[in-house]
């Protein structure tokens, strides 16, 4: 098994005719992901890498029964694409787009409450269940099927960790990049219970970074509810306060959100916090 992405996943690509959309559609198909529809307004009837293109999400979903959408639409138009996916009844939205205004995301987040749609991202590199399907932009080849769940606020840092895991013989059940923005759909708090309940996940790697309090909230969940071992790494110890480090979410404001505070909270919850990504495989092996 796995979480969020599995054998029933049927992907629709929003913004499929764009440069990024088209490129990553090929990448997903090459990995074996069932990409069955694409949407770009006004481009109905085209095919991209053999995938039929529709004008609207409604058409795409009705025609193909797609249940997962991946969004490569530019930031200015991405909120509209997200609402369209929600209103078309998509179960899982994976928003790759970077640079969506925070207030737009606040509205989307609150609009999603009580709806049957969940959302990963924006500013996510996607989600992959190795050997089954990849929905996003990560290099598929480094991911190996296995029993470790990976959840991360980062992109390439996740590849680094996944690569280390693979080299150490530790395959992954599902790897999720929740996105580097201040406001994202699913947070650690939403993902951890899914891993806890997934019979094919034995341990979880949580890759956090400076900014916000999501890691602290995750720690409180782990302490109270989680039985599977968790190993963590927090990026940004060396970052100065008040400066944005690439990710919109990675900023230490007013003394909160430091790597130290996050590490402390996680360690108090029994999490092994690695000093470097390279230490993660060994810490995991100790716990398993």
């Amino acid at each position: 098994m796995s979480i969020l992405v599995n054998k029933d996943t049927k992907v629709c690509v929003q913004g499929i005719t764009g440069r990024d959309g088209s490129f990553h559609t090929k990448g997903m198909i090459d990995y074996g992901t069932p990409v069955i529809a694409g949407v770009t307004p006004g481009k109905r009837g085209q095919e991209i890498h053999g995938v039929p293109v529709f004008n609207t999400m409604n058409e795409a979903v009705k025609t193909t029964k797609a249940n997962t959408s991946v969004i490569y639409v530019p930031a200015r138009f991405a909120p509209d694409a997200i609402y369209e996916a929600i209103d078309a009844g998509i179960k899982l939205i994976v928003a790759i787009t970077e640079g969506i205004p925070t207030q737009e995301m606040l509205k989307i987040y609150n609009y999603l409450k009580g709806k049957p749609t969940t959302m990963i991202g924006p500013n996510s590199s996607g989600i992959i269940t190795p050997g089954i399907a990849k929905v996003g932009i990560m290099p598929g080849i480094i991911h190996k099927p296995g029993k470790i769940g990976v959840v991360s606020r980062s992109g390439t840092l996740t590849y680094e960790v996944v690569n280390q895991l693979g080299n150490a013989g530790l395959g992954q059940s599902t790897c999720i990049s929740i996105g580097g923005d201040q406001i994202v759909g699913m947070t650690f708090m939403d993902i951890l219970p899914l891993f806890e309940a997934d019979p094919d996940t034995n341990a979880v790697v949580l890759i956090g970074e400076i900014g916000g309090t999501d890691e602290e909230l995750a720690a409180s969940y782990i302490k109270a509810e989680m039985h599977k071992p968790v190993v963590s790494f927090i990026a940004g110890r060396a970052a100065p306060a008040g400066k944005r480090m690439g990710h919109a979410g990675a900023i230490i404001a007013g003394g909160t959100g430091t790597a130290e505070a996050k590490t402390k909270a996680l360690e108090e919850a029994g999490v092994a916090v690695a000093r470097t990504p390279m230490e993660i495989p060994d810490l995991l092996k100790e716990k398993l």
Partner: protein
Amino acid sequence: MKIHEYQAKRIFARYGILLPYGKICDTPEEARKITKKIKKPVVIKAQVQVGGRGKAGGIKLAKNPDEAKELAKYILSMKIKGIQVKKVMVTEAIDIKEEFYIGVVIDRAEKKIALITSEAGGVEIEEVARETPEKVHKARVDPLIGLRSYQIQKLVAPLFKDKELQRETGWIIRKVYQAFIENDCSLAEINPLVLTRDGKLLACDTKINIDDNALFHEKLANLRDPNAEDPLELEARQSDLSYVGLDGNVACIVNGAGLAMTTMDIIKLYGGEPANFLDVGGSSSPEKVVNAMRIILTNKNVRAILINIFGGITRCDDIAAGIIEAMNKMEVPYPIVVRLTGTNKEKAREMLADTDLTFASSFAEGVKKAVEFAGKK
């Protein structure tokens, strides 16, 4: 993005919020004239986007036009935290009875918009929150339904007993919230909101930060003051690179923000000091590497360069092409350590075979070598 106090005041003024009378200027003579017109003592404030202006001597009280001229001259010659003061704001001095705080921020944890008021204005709200949390009043606004009257009531009731002042302050809160929404702010603040001895409410100091992701709106992007920024960060942004200058001597060029932060962390862990944060982004062209290299070389502290790439969308051969081009275009007087893995790494290695770069086969090895090189010089 931070903007200047005078820019924030202009925004608030558009919403009808009362401000002390004042003008912005960039010469001492103008400061004198403005003061003459005001016919009262004035406050002269340096317009720089850093905290602690007052402590640094960037805010002064002048009793008359001549003194204003003199003090403006002094302030306009200052550098505060490395930033040259280019403009000062001259405003009438206010007869303060009480000081309050009004602020709007994004509440990341609750995914709402937080409104904050306090009867302890004039100091940093974080300090008030730490020391007298009972003086900090919060309401969380659902962005889908907006600010409701009962929330305003909650925010103003602890500040005043007087119903009229409650009503006026409620109106100001509504306007600050509206300004926050309509200008895609990440922070909008009046601190202090002053109650004068003659019973008026004036926004004596204001602060607005704009969401970087909303700068595609031209009217917001136009608020940016290139002079207020670190010139390297400015140049990096114009080249679509994410760069933050630091004090160390190990420069790094990395793809991805998380990996770039981690590279800095490990440089430090292995005894070095990072010279910068630099993320070349997702699909990086050779040109970006050239620009990154140029920006890094402007930093005179640098003693070694680490290029750390985990290819995904980023292709290692693109990075290699960029490195070769950069070395053709400019002289690089420091050792370069290259760690390239992921997409097309073999091709990249081939391309770089004839160079005198130092290769590392892992992240750890790359950092160790770079730190070692930087320590030698």
